[in-house]
């Protein structure tokens, strides 16, 4: 008998003021830009200042979001730590490369290399917590976070672990943004938060963030929702997505009518948002549609923000107006589906239920 998988706590550092768990998108940070930085929490409350000085931003953000998740779950330790990251602590990688080039491979120091290792966030959380359990890091573009959820679900269902800390983190880094702007992945001109999703221009607004959650196979006082099912697909043909989604729901003995809402990964890239808009005008026509990337920015683990949003909706029963894409209302959210893809690749479906 497979065990249930509960989301027992959340922690977030993002472009919005999400680190304050008492708030729910009440005080929105607006912008007119192509890149977005996180709202820095007071890192000193979480990390000794001496350690923080050389710490990569991804590690710092994750120290805050993971500690908040652990605190809310009332745990000192977990059985496993699983992190998704598209690019790891890329800022340090890029500095290390530029140092290699500028200094002709001389006078280098190890810190930037060490922090470049993709699993540096998972490793540093384990080190800080003294967690000797399973420690994995998934690095597959926009399904990095979903791969981590999948791994956690496997272990919790099989009762190989009781509590698992699962997260997604990515940094916004200049060289990466510059070069990806060259190839059209980043918007050329600044755009406002209000207009980004209807910008009709190529590329995305790039953000960053870190989201951590405690997943358990035991319900707790703070439980937000239940993770029912995940789908990961490296490719999907445009015309087959609706069928894949209805098939996915059918596998869970559900139909589209059973969904109280869908949370979609629209990022305002005119070349790829049709993956969502096609669904909005077909199978999801009568379903409340929600979006979040105008608030979070686009990054490989932006779905961590989407997952955070879904769980906040379950907990509060409220749907902030700013995330609504159509005028259908969600009254008593019982079941939400997240669908995301990036540039036509790495599609994911995540099904959450109230419990």
């Amino acid at each position, binding site marked *: 008998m497979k065990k249930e998988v509960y989301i027992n706590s959340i922690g977030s550092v993002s472009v919005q003021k999400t680190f304050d768990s008492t708030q729910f998108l009440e005080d929105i940070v607006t912008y007119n830009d192509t890149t977005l930085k996180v709202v820095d929490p007071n890192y000193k409350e979480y990390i000794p200042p001496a350690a923080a000085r050389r710490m990569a931003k991804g590690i710092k953000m994750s120290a805050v979001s993971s500690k908040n998740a652990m605190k809310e779950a009332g745990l000192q330790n977990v059985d496993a730590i699983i992190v998704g990251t*598209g*690019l*790891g602590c890329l800022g340090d*990688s890029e500095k*290390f*490369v*530029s140092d*290699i*080039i500028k200094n002709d*491979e*001389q006078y*280098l*120091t*190890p810190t930037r*290399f*060490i922090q*470049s*290792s*993709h*699993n*540096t966030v*998972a*490793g*540093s959380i*384990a*080190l800080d*917590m*003294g*967690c*000797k*359990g*399973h*420690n*994995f*890091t*998934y*690095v*597959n*573009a926009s*399904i*990095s976070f979903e791969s981590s959820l999948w*791994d956690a679900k*496997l272990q919790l*269902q*099989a009762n190989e672990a009781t509590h698992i800390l699962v997260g997604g983190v990515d940094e916004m880094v200049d*060289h*990466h943004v*510059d*070069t*990806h702007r*060259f*190839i059209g992945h980043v918007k050329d001109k600044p755009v406002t938060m209000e207009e980004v999703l209807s910008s009709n221009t190529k590329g995305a607004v790039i953000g960053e963030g870190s989201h951590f959650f405690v997943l358990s196979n035991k319900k707790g006082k703070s439980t937000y929702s239940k993770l029912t099912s995940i789908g*990961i*697909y*490296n*490719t999907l043909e445009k015309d087959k997505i609706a069928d*894949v989604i209805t098939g996915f729901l059918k596998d869970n003995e559900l139909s589209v009518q059973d969904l109280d809402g869908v949370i979609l990964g629209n990022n305002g890239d005119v070349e790829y948002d049709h993956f969502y808009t096609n669904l909005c005008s077909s199978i999801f026509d009568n379903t409340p549609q929600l979006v979040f990337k105008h608030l979070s920015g686009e990054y*490989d683990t932006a779905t961590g923000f989407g997952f955070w949003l879904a769980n906040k909706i379950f907990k509060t029963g409220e749907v902030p107006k700013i995330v609504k894409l159509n005028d259908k209302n969600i009254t008593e959210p019982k079941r939400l589906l997240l669908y995301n893809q990036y540039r036509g*690749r*790495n599609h994911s479906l995540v099904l959450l239920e109230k419990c």
Partner: protein
Amino acid sequence: MNRGIAITGMGLISSIGNNVEENLTSLTSNKTGISRITQINTVHKNDIMVGEISQTNDMLEKQLGLAPNSYSRTPLLGIIAAKEAISQAGIDNIKDCRTGLISGTTVGGMDKAEQYFYDYYESDEHWNHINGLHAGDSTQKIADAIGLAESFVTTISTACSSSANAIMLGARMIKAGELDRVIVGGSDCLSKFTINGFKTLMILSDTYNTPFDEHRKGLNLGEAAAFLVLESDEIVSRENKKVLAYVKGYGNANDAFHQTASSENGDGAVLAMEKAFKVAGLKPSDIDYINAHGTATPNNDLSEGRSLLRIFDNNVPEFSSTKAFTGHTLAAAGSVEAIYSVLAIQNNIIYPNIGFKTPMSEFDLVPETALKHKEINTVLSNSFGFGGNCSTLIFTKEA
């Protein structure tokens, strides 16, 4: 006892051979792949030795029918190894069952990123490599090359245990019934990034690496790609497949001691091995051969040696590190050595730990120094990485 997961195909390219057969020949004829570096123009070229694959990118791209300078070296090596594995497994139609791909890499497309880091600002000539930096890109290219679509494809990066963890996840996915078949392994190429990174950590040897030797001077970096095909019992019996060996046990644990160094007594390694034994339903005395992580750094070999003494209660079976042949192939090391473990089972051999002369002063562990023939039913393989990551895999002849 728990049933193992069937291995039905293997593919491998390393500095000691362009395929599995060539690797076996080198391993059994004391032919090391360690040499001076020829394909990367690094200022350290006279201070280091590496396990470099002799084929250039041009040659690899020609072999794969790709235009020159299309891909980073990581996916090029990965595609070659993955294709060999699929061919050995006799897979004609990769879509005939739920097939997945799980790859490990640390370097990803860094070889191209470091080459064109500033050039990207000057000209658009190499912009094809911009989106090749991220680790998932190499996996995506491998998936495309082997025709995997609408499938579970992901990438693991846990430093030097990445591909061991890919094998572990693959086995767990099949066990849980989430996939029928999964191609698991990893790929990493040499790069200035890793050469300089390990150089700053002062753990690169200026000569041939000598695992478990008192006078070991550090590791030689290597490059490789290695993939295995794992299939469910249903697929094996449906297609009457030849099973090469089984993934019987696996365990991952964290040392939680230091970002880059292993704890003195190998706590994480002990935990990983204990977990693997538990999953396998085996005990230490069942192990016929240990393919050690054995990087030849002072820290690893001491910590790993102590962990072996603890797990095997001072009665350590025959062991060796094959890194004196291949160098340390980082993310690929776990799957390279998984294939060597399967070859040990298939051929009933133990590989020599070449270069070993003097036992370490801290204990009296002596690896095998000559090729040994012996009935091998069960092999334990260790892989450890930065971030305290410790992984153990156990392979068996019988399910």
